[in-house]
């Protein structure tokens, strides 16, 4: 099992790096999809089955497809964006690396709290997720509907072509 974990982690990290460093946006999208799939694998390892399925459907199926649509639609694949200056890139790499190290150091000394509840193997199953979602978190659940409507309206409005523009 640990081997599976390491494999999935390696895939995730490798694809994440390729997302950042690949030239063409399409390549970045593909690698991001791979990363998400590996993360879904992680979810299954954690027995969060509901989340894994939702992750695949929503993220990989919807969001990434949306990305691909936009890239294809606007022919963004062909546009070449100049790279940042060397100084900026070095500064970026250094700060990113520093962030990584500092956060690691911050978590290293953190003491782990022993889990209070006894281990419940049914956490993560659809039934359990549904119970919690519709009982304890009903209000946020309904409000997300509102959130979606406003996002939709916003997206449509922003995407409209301006009639007066000549």
């Amino acid at each position, binding site marked *: 099992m640990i081997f599976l974990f390491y494999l999935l982690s390696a895939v995730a990290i490798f694809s994440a790096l390729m997302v950042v460093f690949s030239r063409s946006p399409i390549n970045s999208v593909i690698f991001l999809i791979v990363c998400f799939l590996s993360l879904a694998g*992680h979810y*299954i390892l954690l027995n969060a089955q509901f989340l894994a399925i939702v992750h695949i459907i929503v993220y990989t199926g919807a969001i990434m497809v949306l990305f691909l649509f*936009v890239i294809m639609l606007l022919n*963004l694949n062909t546009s070449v964006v100049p790279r940042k200056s060397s100084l900026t890139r070095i500064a970026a790499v250094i700060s990113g690396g520093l962030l990584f190290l500092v956060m690691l150091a911050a978590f290293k000394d953190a003491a782990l709290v022993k889990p209070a509840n*006894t281990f419940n193997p049914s*956490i993560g199953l659809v039934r359990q997720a549904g119970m919690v979602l519709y009982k304890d978190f009903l209000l946020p659940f309904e409000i997300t509907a509102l959130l979606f409507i406003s996002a939709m309206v*916003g997206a449509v409005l922003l995407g409209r072509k301006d009639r007066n523009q000549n």
Partner: protein
Amino acid sequence: MEKITTAIQLIPLQHYIVLSITLFAIGALGVLLRRNTIIILMCIELMLNSVNLLLTAFSAYHSDPAGQVFVFFIMVVAAAEVAVGLSLIVMMKRNVDSLDINLLSRLKW
């Protein structure tokens, strides 16, 4: 089922923390390094997902379903955000005809 259950109890939490931190750092690096707005948006998604992973790991180890529900909501928000963000990118392409993020710099002193 039991195999998975035992697997969970085998992998220590620190591993997940380190993995999550790594993914987050890579996402931050991407945001800083790249000039293409779409890539930046994707790196933001990467950062969000690293947090999702961490939350799920904690939820599994503490047998608290609230963590996974929280992840669910994060996904919701991420979806909405991507929708709006992409329409912004479309507008940007229409107005300045490029995806260079340094071109939009009028919000200054």
